[in-house]
């Protein structure tokens, strides 16, 4: 069970949050210029990393704000929490096999 440190409310149980999967996927600037493969990449393809994963969470039953989390998807340790729009944290983005 995760104890997620909401940057606005402090540490809360995972049940209070909803999940937004992978972070740092920008919306295409010129959607009408995208071909089908590029749309598939944007809509469906995900890193699904085993290792350190950058992901979005929303404090649904609290402040209702979105933020980003760097989490180890093997040990489940939360390594960093940062605002939407902030740059990636300086972490080794480890990938396991």
């Amino acid at each position, binding site marked *: *069970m*995760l104890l997620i440190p909401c940057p606005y409310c402090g540490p809360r*149980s*995972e*049940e209070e949050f*909803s*999940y937004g*999967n992978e972070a740092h996927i920008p919306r295409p600037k010129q959607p009408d210029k995208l071909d*089908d*493969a590029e*749309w*598939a*990449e944007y*809509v*469906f*393809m*995900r*890193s*699904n*990393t*085993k290792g350190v*994963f950058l*992901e979005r969470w929303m404090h649904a039953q609290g402040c209702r704000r979105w933020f980003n989390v760097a989490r180890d*998807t*093997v*040990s*489940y340790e939360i390594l960093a929490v940062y605002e939407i729009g902030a740059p990636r944290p300086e972490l080794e983005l480890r*990938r*396991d*096999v």
Partner: protein
Amino acid sequence: MMARYSIFSLARNALSYHQDWPAAWRDPAPKPSYQVVIIGGGGHGLATAYYLAKEHGITDVAVIERGWLGGGNTGRNTTVVRSNYLWDESAALYDFALKIWEGLSQELNFNVMFSQRGVVNLAHNQHDLRELSRRINANRLNGVDSEFLTPAEIKRMIPIIDVRAGGRYPVLGASLQRRGGTARHDALAWGYARAADARGVDIIQECPVEGFRIENGRVLGVETAKGFIGAAKVAIAVAGHSSVMATLAGFRMPVTSVPLQALVSEPVKPALDTVVMSNAIHAYISQSDKGEFVIGAGADKYVGYGQRGSLPVTEETLAAVCELFPSLRRMRMMRQWGGIVDTCPDASPILGKTPIDGLYINCGWGTGGFKSTPGAGWVYAYTIAKDEPHELNAPFSLDRFRTGYLVDEHGAAAVAH
């Protein structure tokens, strides 16, 4: 030659106190290269190896497993087998698998304990009812047996269920697939392993694949903990680790890996002789031959590779089970575990070619790929042998996420199986 299992071999071996049974399969060192290397020794990988040998005469095959046979989702699942999926494409594939299940113990000379005890899917509200009726009709049009049960009929079949309208989860109706049921999870892996080994397939355990050798867009083999193994064709069947494999090979997947949980109770006398599932409350339950209640729970909502699952999911499922089956409230749970399921955006599998020549993938079964193992292995072997999909798996290409021809099975798959 494989020693056949029979009543006579059982009696003969009883005389030596069952100490002299031959090993069910060999434990070979990997050869420098094979015609086909299959990554993943779960049910899907092993079935694929068996059908490559049996249907296509391709016996120069290795199955490479990082841990032990069936130690992934195959050995962790709740073994519900059914084929009552909504769309034509899925009904065809899952029912093809179900038909193989019906003769599998005889074919493999291994008791996979397939028990067609029926699968009941509950409806708790008007929406569920409409959805269920639609699915029953679609199933029938596809030749998949499916019938509607009223609450009174459900109660007659399942005396321990609470169908009172005032309950927390009122039961308004259900679908029943009588040909559905359960099987023995390990036996599926072991049966295929033994039969594949007998046809010359090398099964190599404790050997993680750590990379691919790819030149000019064509796969040449795999890098493993036991060194490089060359292969003209490589077939991935690693369930929750599919994205990891794809990343190593340099292409992208639409898959999310999450732990799906299950629990078993202490063993008690027979009280439930069918499978009861409820998509809405993420719980499904059957009773094993040993008497344990086997309870399938929900999946975590976030990416995870820890084979545990989170506590809120366990709690939610058990709360729902206690509401539906009040007499189970004091039952103690003996074990809880998780398996990493590879879920797809449309809750349908990916079974076919990849952007790399000679590299194939079978994944995305998510929460429900045990039932499909025989059929999926069969069509996957076909795809590998012919380098093109069979008509049964052609709709389940990786390319469908580009073309938009998704096969949306959320209603039939969801968390329940």
